[in-house]
């Protein structure tokens, strides 16, 4: 990713991929708004009002979340704009290969007979889950009634009721999960995947044409990139690989590298290896998902843990790499530091694009993250259980330290529902940092790293060097945060989070990143990668940074959740 030293001219607006990423990204975000915002779920406002009234009433009635409180909360959670007809059609069009165990064809096609067998096989599980949920509900009702009969003044009865109600809510979640396994419908993904390939190829071809690149070559090579992305998704959805958290990014890079380092990437496909174009467009879409205003509504303890520790670790790890390990490549140092301290792959992508890192450096950072994530996803809950660390503290600790969002959820769910909620919330707050950190890195690189030592550079020069797509990335975040605030948390959740974002832009973004990882793999050389790993310094950097991260996050989580905001912890 070479430094951009060209002088700024108006033609950059249609000749550079930075601007094309902004145009295409915003085009998709606008399409998402047009598709979802005019179609709210029926009775949305009335349902929200009633649910809020119930929660307010119940909150005043009992010192814990009652059964009625949880039911009202679940009604709000179930209001989703993407459950509309158009939302379901979009989801079907973007559908990735599905879960499979031994036969990869099942990822793409399952006939009615096969699906019937799967659904029938899941029925006993549903019956057990239903029975458990019904029993848990009865116990919860009895315990709540006992606490109520004492006017909610008996601490022991309150605690017992709270535990029973939590157990019922968890059992209810298990029942929903079991129910989903019995309602699978037959599918054949081949036609929709072909359609998606054509639409995406043409979508990116617009920018390729305006930028004056080889349009014919791009269209010829794009199917190969797309097919490898599909294979990567299929492998990521193999059941054991899912357990390890080896996602499509890792497989896309691995398959790409296997091809490029054996038979070689075909010459006719090279024009489609537009790594930065795919990544930057995906990042602009990701910007829309970073709803800064949203996190203010979900709790100060998590904000303090994520927003104090994360930047501290990022800066310290970068300095450690430069001053102690003396890592030659500053960009590699920064990408590994961001990957480890913020939130894994997504942060690594944003940091790499912001500091114009080499694709091999991004590959290395993602590889390190993958290994550490798989280990930490299993080791951390085991340590928390063995040492008796409270689950809320454990959840906060895992949310702040395990890189991948998915692995955080799996490890949190293993401990308890509360641990899962705390872990996922902290990881989400960390996710929101990506935009600010990418902006900071881009400014720092433009002003300091790329400038000659001791030489001051003017504002215009900083502007010339600044990666412009970051403006789209941040702009999307600011605009969507404002829309979310304007709508209010409840409607924002239903229409933005569960509509425009999860129902459309996220689906596009996911594919764009996978295409980028395929392109990275297809243009990466093993020797070049080995050169960056020289002396094992990136590994040492990651291990030392993560050790410090583990210590600081645990301390900060304890301070915030148990000393500064104990009342919030008690209410979780």
């Amino acid at each position, binding site marked *: 990713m070479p430094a951009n030293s060209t002088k700024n001219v108006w033609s950059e607006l249609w000749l550079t991929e930075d601007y094309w990423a902004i145009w295409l990204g915003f085009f998709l975000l606008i399409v998402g708004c047009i598709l979802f915002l005019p179609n709210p779920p029926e009775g949305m406002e009335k349902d929200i009002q009633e649910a809020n009234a119930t929660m307010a009433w119940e909150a005043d009635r009992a010192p814990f979340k009652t059964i009625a409180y949880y039911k009202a909360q679940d009604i709000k959670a179930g209001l989703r704009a993407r459950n509309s007809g158009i939302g379901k059609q979009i989801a079907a069009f973007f559908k990735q290969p599905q879960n499979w165990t031994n036969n990869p064809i099942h990822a793409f096609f399952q006939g009615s007979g096969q699906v019937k067998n799967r659904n029938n096989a899941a029925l006993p599980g549903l019956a057990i889950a239903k029975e458990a949920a019904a029993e848990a509900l009865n116990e919860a009702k009895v315990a709540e009634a006992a606490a109520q009969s004492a006017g909610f003044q008996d601490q022991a009865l309150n605690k017992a009721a709270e535990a029973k109600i939590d157990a019922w809510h968890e059992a209810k979640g298990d029942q929903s999960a079991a129910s989903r396994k019995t309602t699978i419908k037959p599918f054949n993904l081949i036609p929709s995947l072909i359609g998606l390939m054509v639409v995406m190829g043409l979508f990116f071809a617009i920018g390729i044409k305006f930028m004056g690149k080889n349009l014919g070559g791009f269209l010829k090579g794009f199917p190969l990139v797309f097919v490898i992305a599909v294979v990567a998704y299929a492998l990521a959805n193999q059941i054991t690989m899912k*357990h390890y958290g080896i996602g499509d990014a890792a497989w896309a890079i691995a398959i790409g590298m296997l091809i490029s380092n054996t*038979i070689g990437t075909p010459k006719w496909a090279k024009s489609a290896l537009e790594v930065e174009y795919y990544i930057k467009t995906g990042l602009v879409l990701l910007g829309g998902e970073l709803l800064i205003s949203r996190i203010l509504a979900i709790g100060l303890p998590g904000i303090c843990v994520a927003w104090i520790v994360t930047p501290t670790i990022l800066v310290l790890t970068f300095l450690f790499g430069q001053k102690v390990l003396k890592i030659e490549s500053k960009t590699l140092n920064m990408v590994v530091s961001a990957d480890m301290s913020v939130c894994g792959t*997504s942060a690594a992508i944003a940091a790499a694009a912001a500091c114009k890192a080499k694709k091999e450096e991004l590959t290395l950072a993602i590889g390190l993250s993958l290994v550490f994530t798989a280990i930490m996803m299993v080791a951390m809950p085991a340590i928390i259980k063995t040492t008796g660390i409270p689950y809320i503290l454990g959840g906060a600790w895992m949310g702040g330290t395990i890189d991948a*969002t998915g692995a955080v959820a799996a*490890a949190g769910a293993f401990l308890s529902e509360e641990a899962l909620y705390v872990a996922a919330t902290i990881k989400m707050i960390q996710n929101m940092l990506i935009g600010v950190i990418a902006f900071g890195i881009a400014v720092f690189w433009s002003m300091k790293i790329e400038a000659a030592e001791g030489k001051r550079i003017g504002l215009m020069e900083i502007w010339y060097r600044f990666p412009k797509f970051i403006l789209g990335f941040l702009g999307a975040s600011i605009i969507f945060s404002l829309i979310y605030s304007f709508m209010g948390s409840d409607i924002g959740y239903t229409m933005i989070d569960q509509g425009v974002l999860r129902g459309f832009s996220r689906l596009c973004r996911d594919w764009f990143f996978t295409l980028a990882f395929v392109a990275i793999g297809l243009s990466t050389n093993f020797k070049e990668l080995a050169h960056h790993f020289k002396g094992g310094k990136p590994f040492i950097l990651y291990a030392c940074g993560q050790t410090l991260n583990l210590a600081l996050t645990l301390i900060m989580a304890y301070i915030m959740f148990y000393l500064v905001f104990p009342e919030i912890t008690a209410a979780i």
Partner: protein
Amino acid sequence: MEETKISKNWLYLLIGIVLMGLFIFVIAPALQNQSDTFNQISMIIDQHDVETGAYVYTDLELTAQAVIGARSTIEYPPVGPKQQ
């Protein structure tokens, strides 16, 4: 000479594919079975269909529920009647 090189490259590709298959179907499941914790986490992943490779919170259903739960706690903190 050129032909030998080409067949060698294809052979390497084939070996790579076989190694990937070995990892997916033999090595990874065997390693997983060494740890009880890993097996229990795997069951939870299957049960809730957790996307363990997810990059961002929007990739996961579980985060939506977590956020609603956390927001409810902040907006309507259960306080109950005053303790006597």
